[in-house]
């Protein structure tokens, strides 16, 4: 009956309750949407950093991780020795040979980073094939086909089908140089990749660098990028002392910090927004309690304990919180779903921003993440409880003799 009483009490001042409720629903729903969009942004950032370049895990000689020393190379079959079919969380493995050199076309030359890759393997790790703005991804068919970034193409004034020269210092000290044919141009929005990165066939790169059968690193993709550190910890003991797997958190410590900071800022945003909502709840229930002073007096006279009175008011705020939560979560989920499926393209207004090693794309796009729901939900109930406590306390401490005199 207490529950019935609390529920009916809520609707005594329908308009006031609805106003408060709508504020709660709006704050919860918008919060869920905003957090979803934030998460989408971070997911984009992480994806740009991992799916456009590193992958989630990178296996290489420790020395290579540290100094990119071109002589710290590995056998190109190295991955198959340490990673088995049982490592099901690893869904992509791409051996790579890296070379820093010069791409040149007549008068124009640009320093670049060339990754020698096996196209079909690399596609499992990076997603540049989805970022093509012209041409095709290099295939095995063309032994010197290259994929370059939009920025580089612009600087060199080249388009697909053009030839360009790559020059580098080979491992035997000679000047490695050969022609590449541009098969495709990608645009990731991350200027470092768009201006510097060249993908070419592994065999071609091995030949030009005079490193037959050798690679510098093995990039890997995981089903769940958030488990990268755990997977690295699990795999590392299998490896020889001079070989090491780093996860994206090691490779992009800023990104790891950004994601950790996000968890904190999520709490801060939730707290600030709910503070306002909490004040609204507080006000509503204070008014409600004041208006019912006589009723509380009568209930007390009947023998209702102070704590039961307190419980009644808290039950009312929690009920309101619960209703707000149900509607808010639903609205939030619907809006998040819309933003996940459709999103808003801002490419016409802003350009991509590179930050902490990742690129924030010019779009509003949400992803579902459990924390974005249970943090606002839990906090809303908590806020309802806290905001309800003061009025509840006031009601509980009424003097019944005074209270029954109020009309």
């Amino acid at each position: 009956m207490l529950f019935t009483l609390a529920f009916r009490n809520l609707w005594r001042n329908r308009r006031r309750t609805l106003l408060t409720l709508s504020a709660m629903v709006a704050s919860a729903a918008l919060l869920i949407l905003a957090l979803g969009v934030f998460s989408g942004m971070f997911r984009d950032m992480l994806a740009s950093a991992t799916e456009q370049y590193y992958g989630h895990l990178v296996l290489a000689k420790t020395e290579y991780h540290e100094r990119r020393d071109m002589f710290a190379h590995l056998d190109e079959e190295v991955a198959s020795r340490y990673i088995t079919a049982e490592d099901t969380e690893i869904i992509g493995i791409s051996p790579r040979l890296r070379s820093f050199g010069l791409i040149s076309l007549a008068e124009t030359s640009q320093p670049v980073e060339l990754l020698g890759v096996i196209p079909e393997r690399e596609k499992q790790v990076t997603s540049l094939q989805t970022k093509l703005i012209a041409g095709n991804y290099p295939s095995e068919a063309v032994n010197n086909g290259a994929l370059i970034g939009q920025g580089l193409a612009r600087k060199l004034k080249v388009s697909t089908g053009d030839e360009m020269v790559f020059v580098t210092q080979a491992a035997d000290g000679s000047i490695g140089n050969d022609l590449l044919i541009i098969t495709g141009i990608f645009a990731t929005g991350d200027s470092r990749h768009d201006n510097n990165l060249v993908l070419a066939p592994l065999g071609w790169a091995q030949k030009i660098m005079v490193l037959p059968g050798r690679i510098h690193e093995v990039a890997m993709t995981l089903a769940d990028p958030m488990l990268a550190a755990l997977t690295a910890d699990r795999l590392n003991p299998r490896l020889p002392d001079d070989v090491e797997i780093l996860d994206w958190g090691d490779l992009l410590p800023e990104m790891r910090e950004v994601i950790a900071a996000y968890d904190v800022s999520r709490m801060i945003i939730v707290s600030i927004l709910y503070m306002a909502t909490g004040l609204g709840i507080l006000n509503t229930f204070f008014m409600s309690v004041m208006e019912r002073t006589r009723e509380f007096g009568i209930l007390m006279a009947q023998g209702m304990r102070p704590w039961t009175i307190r419980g009644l008011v808290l039950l009312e705020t929690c009920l309101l919180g619960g209703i707000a939560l149900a509607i808010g979560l639903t609205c939030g989920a619907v809006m998040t779903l819309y933003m996940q499926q459709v999103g808003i393209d801002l490419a016409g207004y802003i350009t991509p921003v590179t930050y902490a090693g990742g690129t924030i794309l010019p779009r509003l796009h949400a992803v579902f993440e459990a924390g974005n729901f249970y943090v606002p939900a839990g906090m809303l109930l908590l806020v309802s409880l806290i905001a309800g406590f003061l009025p509840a306390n006031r009601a509980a401490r009424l003097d019944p003799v005074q209270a029954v005199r109020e009309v």
Partner: protein
Amino acid sequence: MSLIELQDVSKIYRLGSQEIPALTGVSLTFEAGEFAVLAGPSGSGKTTALNLIGCLDHPTSGHVIVNGLDLGTASKKALADFRLQNIGFIFQSYNLIPVLTAAENAEFTLMLQKVPKPERRAKVRKLFVDLGIDGLENRRPADLSGGQQQRVAIARAMAADPHVILADEPTANLDSHTAEELLELMRRLNREQATTFIFSSHDDRVIAQARRVIHLQDGCLADDLTISK
């Protein structure tokens, strides 16, 4: 042992630095089954006396002993529990919780006593019949007349089988006909079920119905008459 005993009870209210004596040195006893009225003009201390008897308030000095217990320094919670088991209250008006139906209002004290639902349903249904308000169970207080509301309040007060029902000017807001009917009802309950009633009133017609009339004047006991009829 008397049901209720007031021993040299005084109550002084403080308004800032001012002390307002509401009751001064009142000693009274009530026995079970009484039908007594506290009479006197407003401000004479009737309501204060009822509040003290009903354990809503502590006396400034003296003792109030109800059913053998002196709750002089008991906590609010202990007082609440005591009221729940021993006292029924009927106020002048607006006794009922507006969001609950008549039956729910009447059941409320039983609910607080944790009486199982079927049992309290049955009890309230019977009470409603006794009090002539059967058929109004599912109405909200706003849809009841003043007399019906007071009957529901009586039902609620009686539902928990208290030792005493205290009614503070229960007829004040009723027309004379309805007031008479309500008084008649309380008298009948007193007669048939031996329910103890103590109420306050300044209405002579009400006072005339009582078997014991205690006159209060400026917080002091002026007269205590038992009328045999």
